[in-house]
Each structure stands twice: as structure tokens, then as C-alpha cells.
């Protein structure tokens, strides 16, 4: 186990050293504050560090992209947040952004340009795929996941919303595990139930929870691991697995965590 201590640089620090980051890591609110999602953040940082990517974060200068406000209909709040973030990003002349949250990804990529913030925005699975394709990320760990069954849950805002279906699967391929698809996957994937600001409210009355329905589909594939690419999906699927009392048999992990683990980085 590689127990290195990592100093995560902020863009401000980097610029004061006269350097410019290759890519800005947009951590997102979940990635910053949520206990579970912070593990994903740290896993991704370890991969970036391991691969020698010149990255930086905004630190305290980052603020909510405004996604949950926008999906809930609060366009004012969204645009206020967007304008504020764009001012910061433009001041630092940011060119490329990576984020582990499909909601941040979608908002930054699709909704910021019209408000004056045009950047190359990639989801972390796309960056991982790039690193793999360029040979910067190889598997040194050797078969942690060999023979394991992994099923990937497509996040709505990565999949249907932006048609990114291949990158997460490509990134999973190097684990040398057995990838199994759910009955509903890719463009037909079922939502985990968190999108559209649902994460922040009680569900309306119904006969069951969306995450339970989705987890049921995942369980049909008899997986050892449910792979996610979104902190909110991760929470929902984790709760779903608990609902079926399978938390001792089935892990819910982000792709970044799986890759970090396979490389003995955790």
C-alpha cells in the first residue's frame, strides 16, 4: 500500500507559483461535504496524483454550480451561482474541468457556456478512459477484481442527458472483472431517484422508492459490485442495497474507487 501524503493544490497556489493546471478538478458539493462522496474525491485525487496529472482545485472559491436550484425551478438562484462561478473560473483562465459529479458535469458543460463560461468539461470516467488510452494509467495492482461481477448503473445526467455510455465501461474494463449489464441500461437506464432535486426532499406518495426499484434491477444481475459514476447515485444504490439487506455481500463503489483500489492506491 502506497501511503503517500498528498498536498492538493488550489488554483490560486499554483498560479502564485507561476503555473497553470492542466485540468481543474471541480469537486462539487457532495464531493466536498458528504462523507461517502469524499471517499470518491480522495480516490480520484490519488489517481490524478499517481498518473502525474497537473491538477488543482478551487478550494473555498468553489460554490454550488446551481444545478439543484435549476432543476427545482429556481432560475434566479441558478444564474446567480453560475455567474459567480464563471467569474472565478474566467479570472483563473481555466480551460479544462474534470468532475466526478454528473450534475456538475452537465451544468458546467451545457448551461454555463451561454452565460459566458465556456470550458472543456469532462466527467472523471472520461478522463480515466483518456489516461488509460494514453498509457498513463495502467493496472499495477494485479487482479483485485478478477472474476468479480460488476454492474454499472448509468447516471441519468451522464447517460441520457449527455450520451456518455462508453467511457465508464471502458474504464471498468481494465479491472479485468466480469461486466454485466442490467435489463435497463444505457439510454434505457432507470433513474436512481435522486435527480431533479429529489435528493433534497421526501418522495411523493407512491408504492415504493425509486432507488429500491433500481437496486432490484441491479440485484437481478447477481453482482459482487454495483459501480456508480455519481455521488448521488452512490447514496441511492447504497441505501437500496441496505433495503434488501445485501450490504455484506454487495459493494457499491464509484469507478474511481475501484480503479484506485486495483492500483493499490487506497
Amino acid at each position, binding site marked *: 500500500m502506497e501511503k503517500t501524503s498528498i498536498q492538493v493544490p488550489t488554483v490560486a497556489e499554483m498560479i502564485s507559483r507561476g503555473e497553470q493546471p492542466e485540468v481543474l478538478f471541480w469537486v462539487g458539493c457532495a464531493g466536498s461535504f458528504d462523507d461517502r462522496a469524499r471517499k470518491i474525491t480522495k480516490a480520484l485525487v490519488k489517481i490524478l496524483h499517481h498518473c502525474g496529472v497537473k491538477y488543482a*482545485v478551487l478550494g*473555498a472559491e468553489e*460554490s454550488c454550480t446551481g444545478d439543484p436550484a435549476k432543476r427545482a425551478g429556481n432560475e434566479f438562484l441558478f444564474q446567480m451561482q453560475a455567474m459567480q462561478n464563471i467569474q472565478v473560473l474566467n479570472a483563473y483562465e481555466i480551460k479544462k474541468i474534470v468532475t466526478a459529479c454528473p450534475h456538475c458535469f452537465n451544468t458546467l458543460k451545457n448551461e454555463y457556456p451561454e452565460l459566458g463560461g465556456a470550458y472543456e468539461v469532462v466527467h472523471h470516467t472520461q478522463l480515466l478512459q483518456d489516461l488509460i488510452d494514453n498509457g498513463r494509467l495502467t493496472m499495477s495492482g494485479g487482479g483485485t477484481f478478477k472474476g468479480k461481477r460488476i454492474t454499472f448503473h448509468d447516471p*441519468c445526467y451522464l447517460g441520457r*442527458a449527455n450520451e456518455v455510455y462508453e467511457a465508464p465501461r471502458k474504464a471498468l474494463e481494465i479491472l479485468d472483472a466480469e461486466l454485466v449489464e442490467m435489463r435497463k441500461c444505457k439510454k434505457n437506464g432507470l433513474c436512481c431517484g435522486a435527480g431533479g432535486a429529489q435528493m433534497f426532499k421526501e418522495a411523493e406518495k407512491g408504492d415504493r422508492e425509486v432507488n429500491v426499484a433500481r437496486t432490484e434491477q441491479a440485484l437481478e444481475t447477481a453482482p459482487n459490485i454495483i459501480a456508480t459514476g455519481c455521488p448521488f447515485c452512490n447514496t441511492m444504490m447504497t441505501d437500496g442495497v441496505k433495503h434488501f439487506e445485501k450490504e455484506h455481500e454487495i459493494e457499491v463503489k464509484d469507478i474511481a474507487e475501484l480503479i484506485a483500489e486495483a492500483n493499490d492506491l487506497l
Partner: protein
Amino acid sequence: MIGQVIFGVLLIAGAVLFGLRVKTIRRNILLGKDIDRKDRAPERWRNMIRTALGQGKMVNRPVAGILHIVIYVGFVLINIEMLEIVVDGLAGTHRIFSGSLGGFYNFLIAFFEILGAGVLIACVVFLIRRNVLRIRRFHLAEMTNWPKSDANIILVWESLLMFAFLSMNACDFAIQQISGEGSISFPVSKYLAGMYGDDVHTLHLIERFMWWFHIVGVIGFAVYVTYSKHLHIFLAFPNTYYANLEPYGRFNNMEAVKKEVQLMMDPNADPFAAPAPAEGEQPGRFGARDVTDLTWKQLLDAYTCTECGRCSSECPANQTGKKLSPRKIMMDTRDRVELVGKQLGKDGQPVDDGKALLGDYITEEEVWACTSCNACVEACPVNIDPLSIIVDLRRYLIMEESKSPESITVMFNNIENNGAPWAFSAMDRDKWKEELL
């Protein structure tokens, strides 16, 4: 002669009724606000050709998709035969093209008969699927009496039309056999000929009856369609042409908000200057309360909806028993705009009837159950976007009425005060970094 006159009158009456209804629908759709969907024409054509003409999304569900293609192809191609029927009707002739087209005519009739039989079989299977098999999407709450009957009326009507078409041919076949004149093969209808006996006079009568039944049925069908969910047979084309070309995840940035926010963010702006409404812009409201706050494209969506329920069967909220059903959103929008259209004042402007789409048709409970997952948009075979209406209704609730589930208000406050949807201090945002040291 009298037959020709009656035929002419019926044809004109049908055309007039159809034309008037088209005008009404057009006017109703244009009650919506403007939105530019004229750009990127080549992509739009491709979209239309793939999705409407080519039925690209229908086959995502293979059984319904393939049967639907049979009806669609049958419907389009058998209409070529209508040309002869109309000419015969007006000129008082019988199978006017049979002489001049010769062997090719024989081929055409055979082709139409096979298609006709296909349509008939597909309609019967659809009727069974709808009424006997318990397919969930055909029995959701919004499928009340009228939508259910509408679907059945159309299927029965189409079956009868095909039956009449084949019967009329069957009689001609029988007469041809008895008289020994003519050599059209009638590959399908010849098997029906036995049903109608061998009396030439009776056969002639039945043939005439079927001919009239068919053509009157077709004219009536054309008019009926304009009042029914079956309008998609025409509107699928413009609707796919004008469909959204952006990634599904991109929600529009509201222009009116942009101006105000820019003003608020601009340090040089006079904080007391009210934002002047831009040229030609109506004061308008934020988001949508009623159909007139929606865009014409959203209203076109509503008229195009064929109530197939594919959207609702993919909807996570609907699947888990929530009240939300994207199909219902479209049906409500259409019912509402029909009513608003009926009540227009003398000046052509909508009158206030004390009702609105939001509240009287669509409840807040439905609006808040959506996860904005876009499954409905992806599933719709004619590229309808129920989500955009849901979002506009939310925008009205939030920005005009400040009405939201309490926890949503808390989330807004958190973002405003801490820059995060939860109550964490902005200063703690990079606390996680310490865990890596």
C-alpha cells in the same frame, strides 16, 4: 349521376370540416410563446426522416413497433388506391386504371391487398393487446373512458375500412369468375369471395355497399382523426422536425432572468434602476401557469401525443406508484389548450375562465415527483418533451408563487448562504484535503 353528386358533396364536406379543424388546431398551437426552431435544418430533416418517416424509435419495443410499421406502411401506400376510388367516384367509372395500367394494375391491387390484410391483422392484435392482455401502460389512471374508447374506435374503424376494401375486391373477384371477364388476381380477397354467394346482382350490390362504406369511412376517419389522439399521423412529421436538438441535459437559461442577474452582478449598474423591458417583450411571467405560458412547440407536442404511454412506462416516478405520469402531462396540456381555444374572446385573446393548467389539471404533487431523468423524452417515439413542461411549471411555482416543498426551500437557502445545498460552512469546503495528508 346522383351517386357522383353525392360523392362530390361528401368529399367537399369532408375537406371543409378537415380544413376548419386544421385551422383551429394551428391557431391553438400558436397561442404558445415563440421559440426559435428554424436553425440547423439539415439535422432537423435527418431527425424527421429517421424518427417519423423511418419509425426509428418505434422498434425499441419490437412487437408493437413492427405491427405499427405494418399499419403505417399500409396506411400510406393504400392511400394510392384512394386516387382511383376518388376518380371513380367523381367520374362514375369503375376501376378506371385497370385498363390503362394492365399488368401493373394487377400487381398494385395484389400489393394493396397484402398490405390491407396486414393492417387488418395488426389492428386486431392491437385490440387484443389493449383490451385483453393487461399491459400496464394502457390502464394507468389517465386512461379514462374517453382515451380508451378513442384508441378502440380508431382500431375498429381501421379494421372495418380494411374489411370493406377487401370485401369490395372479393365481390369483384366473384363477378370476374362468373362472367369470365377480367384477369385481376385479387390474391387475398379471393378467399373472402365465398362469403358473398354467387348471384351477380347481389354481388354488385354488396360491392357498391362496400365501396361506399369504405370511402365514406375514409372521409369520416380523416375528420375524426383531427379530434383524436390519432393526429400524430400528421403531426409526427413537424414535431420531430422541430424537436430539441440540444443534449437532453441542457435546460434553457431564461433570458428574462439573465438580464436581471447581470444587472445585479454588475458593480457599475445603478441598483435602483428598474430593468427596462426589452423591445417587443411582453411583461410575461416566469415559468408556466397555463398553456399560454408554454411555447408553441410544447403545444405542438401536446397535439402530437398519441397516448401510447411509453413515456409513463419508463418513468421512475410512475413505475413506483407516484401520481406523476408524463403522458398525463401531455394529455392535460392538450385538453387545456383545446378549452382555452374554444373560449377565445372576440379579439382572439384567451379569456380568464378562472382555471389554469397548473392546479386545475396538473397538481403540484405531480410536478414535484419528477426526477428530471429524461426517460420519458428518450422513450417518446415522436420526440415529445414532457419534462420541459414540468420544469416550466416548477419555475412558475418557485419564481412567481415561492411555493415549494419545505425541504426544497431549505436547500435554496443553503445554496444562497453557504454555496452548497446543505448547511455546511463554505469555509469547510476543502476540509477533505486534510484527510490526505
